[in-house]
């Protein structure tokens, strides 16, 4: 069956994934109408600097723009900013915006990302989350004043905020329910080193401790209550306890939505409907598993892949990337390739954790599925990425690497 080529394409979500999709459509020669819908009032901007250069004040907010006004203009977009999509009717092929506008489409790309999970009391003044520019500027203003910050959740986001806050001389308490931060993601050894980095930089890290609520006084947050009965007093609270896909607007559409928009290996969720970026869960044939990753590079790559598949479904190519993630903490760069979650073993294969520079390889079943470097040069990581992309067998990949530091991760 050959469908008529699309003449009306709507992209919902005007950030990394949505922009990449729109650019790819044009680069591939698509010259029909192209509507880019974004909830935020800003033209597409970048989020990773929000917890880094924006928070510590080294960048002014203009620097996070992803494209110059001229480059954006050149795309010939019908750009609808500041108005969210509210509903989707796949049978009628329409998207309805919150202001009532109805947009018909032949092709739709969903790139609505994720939003922070919240705790009860999150609306109290002094309690922050960090996902968008407004969040970052509000927190930056508070941090610039010094004082005390408690960060709830020692994932990558919480860790980066702790790092930025310390660089500004803010007193930081970091509260984390698991005994070793990030252990489920990167393994206990790497997690323990990242924990040490916090302590070395003067963070009061409380692991194995759950924040049970926000304490308030005079209409403002005064800190958090902990499950051991104690409390942490602070001027501001950052809640960094993970995120949830922005799929509410798809309720009732009949589109498969679980933990994100459920897509096939081509990124398709329904005929003519694709999803990309943090909101998309798809089958990655390279790892033989369904995944949803909240990584900046994946957003761009997936936006690109689904745009191509939408334009040419008969020659659609499966989206089979090696996911890549980085994080900057205390001047050290953490970089990870592959799919580390649910790994069976994590092994230090290069460098020395005690020196703060090391490389960990991850095994799932009998395959090499991931590699993580802390403070390692790119040359050290590249061969590991290549081996992951080639679905290398664990024994072959780690032959010649030290094996004294092996660590079974599912205790």
């Amino acid at each position, binding site marked *: 069956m050959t469908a008529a080529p699309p003449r009306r394409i709507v992209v919902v979500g005007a950030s*990394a994934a949505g922009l*990449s999709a729109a*650019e*790819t459509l044009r*680069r591939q020669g698509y010259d029909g109408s192209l509507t880019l819908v974004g909830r935020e009032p800003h033209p597409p901007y*970048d989020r*990773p600097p929000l917890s880094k250069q924006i928070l510590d004040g080294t960048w002014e907010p203009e*620097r996070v*723009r*992803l*494209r110059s006004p001229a480059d954006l203009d050149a795309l010939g977009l019908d750009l609808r900013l500041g108005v969210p999509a509210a509903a989707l009717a796949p049978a009628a092929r329409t998207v309805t915006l919150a202001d009532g506008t109805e947009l018909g489409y032949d092709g739709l790309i969903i790139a609505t990302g994720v939003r922070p999970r919240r705790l009860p009391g999150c609306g109290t003044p002094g309690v922050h989350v960090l996902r968008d520019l407004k969040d970052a500027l509000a927190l930056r203003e508070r941090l610039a004043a010094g004082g005390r910050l408690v960060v709830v959740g020692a994932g990558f986001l919480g860790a980066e905020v702790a790092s930025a806050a310390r660089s500004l001389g803010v007193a930081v308490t970091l509260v984390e329910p698991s005994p070793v931060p990030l252990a489920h993601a990167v393994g206990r050894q790497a997690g323990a080193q990242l924990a040490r980095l916090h302590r070395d930089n003067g963070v009061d890290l409380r692991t194995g401790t759950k924040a049970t609520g926000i304490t308030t006084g005079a209409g403002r947050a005064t800190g958090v209550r902990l499950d051991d009965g104690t409390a942490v007093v602070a001027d501001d609270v950052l809640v960094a306890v993970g995120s949830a896909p922005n799929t509410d607007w798809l309720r009732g559409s009949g589109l498969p939505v679980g933990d994100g928009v459920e897509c096939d290996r081509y990124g398709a969720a329904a005929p003519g409907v694709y999803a990309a970026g943090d909101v998309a869960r798809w089958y990655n044939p390279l790892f033989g598993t369904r995944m949803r990753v909240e990584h*900046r*590079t994946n957003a*761009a*790559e997936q936006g*690109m892949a689904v745009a191509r598949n939408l334009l040419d479904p008969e020659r659609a190519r499966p989206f089979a990337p090696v996911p*890549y993630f*980085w994080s*900057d903490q205390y001047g050290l*760069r953490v*970089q990870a390739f592959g799919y580390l979650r649910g790994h069976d073993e994590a092994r230090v294969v290069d460098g020395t954790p005690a020196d703060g520079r090391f490389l960990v390889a991850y095994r799932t079943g009998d395959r090499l599925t991931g590699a993580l470097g802390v403070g390692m*040069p*790119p*040359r050290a*990581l*590249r061969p590991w990425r290549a081996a992951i992309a080639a679905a290398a067998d664990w024994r072959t990949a780690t032959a010649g690497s030290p094996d004294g530091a092996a660590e079974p991760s599912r205790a």
Partner: protein
Amino acid sequence: MRVEVDQPKCVASGQCVLVAPEVFDQDDDGIVVLLDTEPGAEHEEAVRESAAICPAAAIRLVQE
């Protein structure tokens, strides 16, 4: 075609090196190094792709 990179913005992801190894490299800290500021037409597609996927929007093409 001229290529410009914004090194202070680069986040050392190495995506550009994977896509266009003749045009981009990385230094020891992972920061992008331009091997060819005016790559030939045969590299144009790869350079465009690098600019599109660079997670830091640190690569720009200047058409003259």
